[in-house]
């Protein structure tokens, strides 16, 4: 159970990215986060594993206060949050397998990992994860030689290496075409349903939300403006979330 209460983030320039956002995510849920670009979706996801330091508010995860964790504790917490990014954020010059193994860095002994030595079982695990997302044959290739869809699979495999209890997906399909988008979303769905991993996923397209999400929260200018089931978003709600002039597409 993830409990976010009164989460506020004000950036150095005075921009209020999040404004007293409060919500809960039960274990095993697929929660979609929607809203316009710049509405605070990315900031919200990054506050949860404190890649972005929240200004105020509290995030409690299974009884552990994330906002009060020390750096050392934070590293231990982070390794159980897998993260998937819009632009994949792979190290483009490293091989696919190195990128996947990087997901294990929070667990392995730092001294050995600096020499690029990973335990045997981790390498095997990496191969299994790559098989699972269908890129096992690309293990030795450089990450930037892969297509967009393949790169995002590497990103998912990297997140899976962390044995995550929750996956934070920041617009994971926004830079992919519709066919690839569905295949990536299916992987996330499968991880959610088979492994029981909670998924927090920000999305742009409402059809994806309808198709995959259990529940939706919507942000507008940093404020939580909607919380409920995907089917509850009618035209009225849509205009509240996206503004008066918005038109539905897809």
């Amino acid at each position, binding site marked *: 159970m993830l409990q976010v209460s009164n989460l506020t983030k004000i950036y150095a320039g005075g921009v209020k990215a999040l404004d007293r956002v409060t919500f809960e995510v039960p274990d095993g849920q697929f929660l979609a986060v929607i809203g316009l670009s710049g509405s605070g979706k990315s900031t919200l996801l990054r506050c949860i*594993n404190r*890649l972005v330091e929240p200004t105020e508010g509290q995030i409690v995860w299974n009884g552990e206060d994330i906002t009060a964790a*020390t*750096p*050392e504790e934070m*590293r*231990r*917490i*982070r*390794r159980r*949050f897998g*993260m998937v*990014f819009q*632009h*994949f*954020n*792979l*190290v*483009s*010059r*490293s091989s696919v397998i*190195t990128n996947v193994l*990087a*997901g*294990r*860095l*929070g*667990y*392995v*002994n*730092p*001294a*050995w*990992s*600096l020499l*690029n*030595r*990973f*335990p045997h079982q*981790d390498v095997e695990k990496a191969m299994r994860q790559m098989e699972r997302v269908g890129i096992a044959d690309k293990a030795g290739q450089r990450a930037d030689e892969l297509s967009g869809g393949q790169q995002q699979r590497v*990103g998912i495999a*990297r997140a899976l*290496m*962390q044995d995550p209890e929750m996956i934070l997906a920041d617009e994971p399909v926004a830079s992919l075409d519709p066919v690839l988008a569905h295949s990536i979303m299916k992987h996330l769905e499968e991880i959610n349903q088979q492994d029981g991993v909670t998924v927090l996923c920000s999305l742009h397209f409402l059809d994806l939300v309808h198709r995959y999400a259990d529940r939706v929260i919507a942000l507008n200018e940093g404020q939580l403006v909607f919380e409920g089931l995907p089917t509850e978003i009618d035209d009225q709600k849509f205009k509240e979330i996206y503004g008066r002039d918005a038109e539905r597409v897809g």
Partner: protein
Amino acid sequence: MKTKPTSIWKSVRIGLLTVLVLVVFAYGFQITQVDLTELRSEQRQESLRRVLRALAKPDLFAYEQEEVIATAPLFIPCPSEESLAALPAPDATNPYMVITPACAEPEGTVQVEGFNFYPNAKGPLRFVPGSDPANTVTLGNGIAITDAQGHFLATLELPDRPSDEVQYLRATIRRNLGALPKLTETAYSTWDKIVETVFLALLATAIGTVLAIPLSFMAARNLMAAVRSPLASISLSVLGWPVGMVIGFLAARWVGALGEPLASSLLANLAAVVIAPLGAWQALRWALPQEELTPPGTGIRLARALLIAFAALALLFALFQLAALAMNLGSLLEDLLASFGFLGGFLYQIGEILRLTTPVLAALAAGGALSSQLSRMGQHYSERAPARLVKAFNLVVTAAAGATILGLLGLLIDALYQIGEPSFTLWIPMAVGAISGLVLAAMVKPKDTLPNGMFIYTITRTILNFTRSVEALVMAIVFVIAVGIGPFAGVLALGLHTIVSLGKLYSEQVESILPGPLEAVDATGANRLQTIIYAVVPQIVPPFISYTMYRWDINVRMSTIIGFVGGGGIGFLLQQNINLLNYRAAAAQMLAIAVVVAAMDYISSYLRQRVV
């Protein structure tokens, strides 16, 4: 649309600006003494022509020559009849000359006819002042050219050198030996020095690159801005450095002394070099498990720390033995390998370097290790302990850290300026440091973090910028004094300059990496060092290689002139020959520099294309 009428003020402004620019350039002409009338002077043009001709004929190839010399007596002015008659008749079996007339007034003209010389050869025909026919000083610039019979006929203007005694004319006729010209002395020495130059640049670049990389991380804003620590942690790490360095240095000395009895035996060295690292490896394997999900208890951690210390000592021992091995093997090979003895010499030098640097490395490693360990403990304590206790702790350790920093600075000042008054250079600075530490600790909230990363960043940047502004040539002057004239001084000067300039260039590359991968690796729970290795290093490899190549290029060019101040390399020869007005030799060296620099340019651009 209405076109705006040009304002009168605008025209005036432009006019004034034009006048100002003209004045600036006129003043520039005056300051830099632009003077083209000088160029028109006969004398300058003549010298210029001579120098350009010499430069166009680099002293690289020359025929081996043989020569015959003949002298003929001559009176200036004409003496009494009997002295003229007393002149010996020329020996017609050897090359000889006949001067007609045999005496002349000063600045008069004589005809010289030579016989029995080499056929179709030539050489200088000169007046030899004084009464010694072997005098090396000659006057005039006559030339004798022989025909197929070895005979020549020349007219010579005599100088204004009247004398009562007999004087001489000398012809030196030379001919080339062999069909092809041979390399000259200058060519050989130029080759020697250009090789020295290239290697000087190579070593400087290698040293510079290795040391610039860690510096560049410290001078990269994007890496350092996130580094913040509580005061206790910072103070403890400040204390950890000097203490750790002393411990490391002493440990290295102790281990070095321990291995001394083994040092002379090659077999013992070899055994130690194999066994000690194996032991260390096993110890480390146990002490650093590859993965653990729960943090271990205190007892196990202590045992691990001891094992790691043991492994470090074993590694130190191995390093010393490796140094001894390299030195022993090197001196052995130097005798054995004959003309490849320099390989043995190289091995010996490497051993020597290893032996000298091991204590320094040990000190740095121990300093770093202790400092980071203490800093982690400080962090831990600040997070766990109640604020009041942390405050008290901060007061103590920050005062100690302040006293340590200023005390060490005071010792440095004493060493440089020889003040010899410990109350000024040690006790007062320590007191000031302690008091500033107390003030700082009193002002900072006990649980706050301070931006120590940005502090290190600023200091590193400042040092880089200051040192970079000193030209390598100036550094070379200092190093020549430190290690003597020769290429080693050049290596050190260029190396230092390479460190600071590459440090800056590299750090700019680190600052421009994509933040995405950094964020992604951070999000997996990796620590800072892991993030650097997995997200930063792969991104900066291509620009680093490219800049290193570029720097090697610069270093080759710099090393050609570092010899001007005694830093070794070809510059020394070049300067010497320019000073001796030996322009043909200087031309040979300039040509060598041009060839090497052009070749380097070509090679480095090729490699950059291939690697990056």
